[in-house]
């Protein structure tokens, strides 16, 4: 969906949600994972996002884009989940690859040795991103992975834009420091 206007969605509520699921389902799933770091929980939350979107369809007035609306629901549900009695007891510590697809070094480049080093660096970067606290991780993921602007991130997370910018700045600095300590940064 290239337009954010609600008008481009089917008039039927269920059909509209179906279209949103096809368009944004995986993005919502991955966003949930970036918060929860648990694939099973992320799958539950991603489905819950669309059910909640269906229930609150009237609140989507098309003033914001569909994805920011869905992301906002996702963020709220993830925060809710993260605070739930069952889950909050342990902050997530698992590696992004721990429960997922095994990652093999990317050796598609000309120089396999260089490719392995590069792959290792990326892996470490991703580890560092996932080690950031939720407040900083969310801005990094939303900004760099989901391509949201700071204005959109503010809308999604309920922060003011200055807070988002501050966190983005700090998160970058933290990542830089971590990369330098880890020997990745040049």
């Amino acid at each position, binding site marked *: 969906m290239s337009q954010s206007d609600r008008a481009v969605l089917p008039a039927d509520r269920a059909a509209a949600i179906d279209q949103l699921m096809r368009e944004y*389902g995986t993005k919502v799933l991955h966003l949930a994972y970036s918060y929860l770091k648990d694939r099973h929980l992320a799958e539950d939350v991603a489905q819950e996002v669309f059910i909640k979107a269906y229930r609150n369809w009237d609140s989507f007035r098309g003033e914001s884009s569909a994805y920011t609306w869905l992301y906002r629901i996702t963020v709220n549900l993830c925060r809710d989940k993260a605070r739930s009695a069952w889950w909050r*007891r342990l902050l997530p510590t698992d590696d992004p690859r721990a429960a997922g697809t095994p990652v093999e070094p990317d050796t598609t480049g000309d120089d396999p040795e260089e490719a392995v080093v590069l792959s290792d660096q990326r892996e470490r970067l991703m580890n560092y991103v996932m080690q950031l606290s939720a407040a900083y991780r969310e801005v990094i993921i939303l900004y760099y992975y989901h391509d949201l602007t700071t204005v959109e991130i503010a809308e999604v997370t309920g922060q003011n834009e*200055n807070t988002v910018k501050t966190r983005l700045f700090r998160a970058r600095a933290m990542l830089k420091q971590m990369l330098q300590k880890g020997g990745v940064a040049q």
Partner: protein
Amino acid sequence: MSDIDKELRHAIKEEFDRSLAGWTFTPEMRQAVLDRIAREGEPEATPVSTPASTTLRRFRPAYWVAAAAAAFVLAINLWPRVSTDSPMTGSAASGGAPESARTTARAPAGDPAEELKIMAVPLDASADTAPGAAAAKQDAAPEVQVTGVPDASGAAVQAEPDAGRGVEAFGLSAESVKVALRGDEIPAAADTARGSWMFLQLDDRGGAQVAEAPADETVSVQTLQATPPEVLDLNPLANGNVVVVNRALVQVVDAYGNRVVETAVDPAPSAVAFGPSGESAVVTSDAVLRFTAEGMLTGSIRQEETPALVAVSGDRTALADSEGIKVYVADSRALTLPGLQPSAMAMAPDGALALLTGSPQGVRLQIYSAEGQLNLDQAVVPEGEGFGFLAGGRLVAVGSALYDRNGGQTGRLPIAPSRVSDLAGGQGVLAWNSQQVARLEAGGATARWVAEVEDGSILQASGSARGDLVVILASTADGPALWVIDESGNRRYAERLAEWPADATAAGDQILLLTAEGLMVRNLNR
């Protein structure tokens, strides 16, 4: 965009995509959503929020006029107290347990026997408040089976689900207050009439440092220099002090930021669980550290594996890991329940363990005595994720259903809670989910009030140190919003926040917000 930004974006995208490659929102997931939508049917267009028979307490502009007038006087009177060592007004005498547990349900400090009887009475029998009346009524109800009582050999009796059958909800009586909360009714965050936040920077080396904000503005993150310690949890104590757990320290500070006790924690803690009386268990990568309610380190349980669940009560600590459940008394293992992988675990003040086991399609409530005897093994159908002991451990909340120790369903909450817990001091029960918060009467069978956020989602609700107030933190269309509601359903306080706190609660006359940068304190009366 700078080159560094481009590189970072490229690297993050590439690696994130690669690590999650092939993991998509599948057609099965989509169909599952559509099936649920089909079952639910068309949602209500507009939630009913104002039944004619209930008293809707609207947010009154007059409140702000009064608050603005009082703020000036109170600011002068209260500001010097920042640097004193005196405890918070009234808190020391409260004698109650701290606010609801983070990982285990808390029980009031007093004897809750009377509450149990009353809470067990269905709504339509609210007049039967004499001790034993509820039990008698329960016995008389054929639909509610008292099951799971150990037979002579000590083996537990297994029972089938009886969720909801013949059990009335703790419904809204005509006297119950329905509170409609809307973020757009709260004045903007820039409102200065209520004074400023007092900011307590929780430094990970030197302890709490008080930094006063300018009187006419809310403190922003830009005022801080140091890299903030990551905060985990905030727990107000009955004596007015506050336990703050961050990545480096467990600190107890008084309500004005003065450090009372401080213990360095290394390796960094990853989680904390609180017991019924404020005792805590702090989880690190190689140990579980035990703290008293006063923040004193009392012991350490070495662990080779980070536990998945932790429950604590007094000097007992239960840890669930891949091998099963291990129960420790002080630092010595007292009991092992091998092979159990519960999805939820709670410990009662007497050491009994309540577990939810089984699969999502076949959830079972199990209760073990402190000695490890299985006293109850019963199928349940949870409506809501809330789980824990209530009423001093005599009841177990499984979602919206309340069971006694024998498995008899004694009541049903008016909402399907994400969390449910006793309020401190036996002040009642707090249950909440993403839309509603219910405060249940401790001395009656009805909800005292139910609050609903109409334009957002509730992220957290917690009781105050005295159990008299409930703090609600919500995400609204206008950003983070905070409400404080008293026993009667009156809004004592409301504010839009500039950023998300990690935790929020109230103690005495103070609102406490734990942010990534430290503890923020504000007087409720401002």
